[in-house]
């Protein structure tokens, strides 16, 4: 089997299966065959991630993590799944039953829809939309509505507090998220994810043209990952679901399978934004150096995704949680100016001639303001009760 066949094995399997389907059912069968692998693989990855996270966090905190179920505890997700399916589904009496039921469904729906535009491998994307990146962000904004629905419908003080904090955090970080993705769109001139990956899969001197290897791409990548961590309410931005403060925030009143669905939705969102970061900045399914292109494209994508998952777990086990005002200050006072500077920077990069001067100028435009801005944020703050001039 040549490297080309192994790389395109799933495309070839799908084409062979489509040959057996009658003409009338071709569109629906094609859609099902494209979507079913995503519905199988990513929840499986979610299950593996839960156990990796618990073991990883345990090791970072100098303890074992789960080690009872299966060899070294790696069958723990099966036990968790059986537990969440067999627990009683409690709905509080004063809760809004319809909205309470729909909130986790909307969350999981939005999280799954986002995978429709991620190219997992060469020629392996569910749909190549002309406005693919815009579709991704539009679907991501539906998650906030689901979070609010969950918090409001539970009619509990902690839920509502957690929901308001979560929504405020998510809409604040949505702006740096989109702005840091805009630099890639400016550099490539297209919103289609397949075209963005194709522009990065070319090699000069054996090194790929990933946008991570440019100054604006590197800063954009870091800002995108910080915003993605905040968007999926992941530590150190997990005040809305702060386990030690407001117990579980907006999903306190959920039990059993709906709780598991919230976790599924959150982790799927994490994988989807990591997948978009891989697509925009790390060249999607392409290899970093040209002599490693014999490794199949989907293997590269999942390797990069696993590195991202590891970094997420590592960051969770390392940093303390950010307080709400620190979190908002970071979004509006640091990340928003940095992303706007980054947009300016990619313009400079595009218009300057090739050479070492371009690198020096673009890096300087980004590093100096970053140092100045972080100095502003580290000033001592006097925290007192806020009184408003016009809103009292």
């Amino acid at each position, binding site marked *: 089997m040549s490297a080309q066949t192994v790389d395109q094995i799933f495309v070839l399997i799908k084409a062979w299966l489509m040959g057996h389907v009658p003409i009338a059912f071709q569109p629906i069968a094609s859609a099902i065959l494209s979507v079913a692998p995503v519905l199988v693989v990513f929840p499986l990855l979610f299950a593996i991630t839960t156990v990796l996270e618990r073991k990883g966090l345990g090791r970072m905190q100098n303890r074992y993590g789960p080690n009872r179920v299966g060899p070294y505890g790696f069958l723990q997700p099966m036990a968790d799944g059986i537990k969440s399916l067999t627990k009683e589904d409690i709905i509080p009496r004063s809760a*809004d039953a*319809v*909205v309470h039921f729909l909130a986790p469904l909307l969350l999981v729906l939005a999280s799954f829809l986002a995978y429709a535009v991620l190219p997992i491998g060469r020629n392996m994307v569910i749909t190549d*939309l*002309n*406005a693919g990146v*815009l*579709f991704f*962000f*539009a*679907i*991501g*904004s*539906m998650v*906030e*509505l689901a979070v*609010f*629905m969950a918090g*409001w419908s539970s009619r509990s003080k902690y839920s*509502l507090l957690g929901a*308001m904090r979560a*929504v405020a955090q998510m*809409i604040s970080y*949505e702006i740096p998220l989109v702005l840091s993705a805009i630099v890639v769109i400016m550099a490539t*001139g*297209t*919103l289609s994810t397949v075209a963005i990956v194709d522009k990065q899969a070319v090699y000069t001197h054996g090194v790929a043209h990933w946008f991570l290897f440019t100054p604006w791409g590197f800063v954009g990548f870091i800002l995108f990952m910080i915003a993605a961590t905040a968007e999926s309410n992941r530590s150190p931005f997990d005040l809305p679901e702060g386990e030690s403060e407001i117990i579980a925030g907006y999903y306190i009143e959920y039990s059993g399978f709906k709780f598991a669905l919230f976790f599924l939705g959150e982790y799927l969102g994490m994988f989807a934004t990591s997948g978009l970061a891989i697509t925009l900045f790390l060249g999607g399914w392409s290899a970093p150096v040209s002599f490693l292109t014999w490794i199949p494209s989907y293997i590269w994508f999942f390797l990069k995704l696993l590195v991202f998952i590891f970094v997420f777990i590592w960051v969770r086990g390392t940093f303390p949680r950010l307080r709400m005002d620190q979190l908002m200050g970071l979004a509006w006072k640091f990340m928003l100016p940095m992303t706007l500077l980054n947009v300016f920077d990619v313009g400079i990069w595009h218009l300057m001639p090739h050479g070492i001067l371009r690198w020096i100028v673009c890096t300087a435009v980004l590093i100096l303001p970053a140092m100045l801005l972080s100095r502003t944020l580290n000033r001592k703050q006097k925290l007192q009760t*806020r*009184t*408003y*001039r*016009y*809103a009292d």
Partner: protein
Amino acid sequence: MTVTFLILAALTIIGASAAMGLRNLIHCVLALTLGFVGLAMLYLELGAQFVGFTQILVYVGAVAILSVFAIMMTRSAGPHAEPALSASWIIGLVVAGATFAVLAWAILSSGITAPATEAPDVSVKQIGDALMHSYAVPLEIMGLLLTAALIGAVIIAMPQEKTP
């Protein structure tokens, strides 16, 4: 009048009517969001990808959240016990009927038929070019409007100055 159009139109109309008719205000906002999603899917059915996705991003992701925050911040108690029909419902019916008659007459007498040629496949690049060249002035005016809104938000949240 394809089946998809009928389904999406029914979805939008049901969402909008539920937004008017439901008792609980948050349920009304969620039904209105359903109407927005129906409109976005109608745009997508007509082939306007950029407008459809922007509709979801702006309306569902921002306007709906704004509405629920406003309701949440300004509600005093639970839903009030009001009768289902207001006292002057006959006048309301007459006014609504008159508006509908005027709109229907305007649309039916405008002479728009199905277009003779296929709709062009507009890419996002062409929309961007049009915004920057032909429609640059409306873009700047909208920027001014949004700046005014931003300044208004900052003024409302301005902390009290320490009086000496």
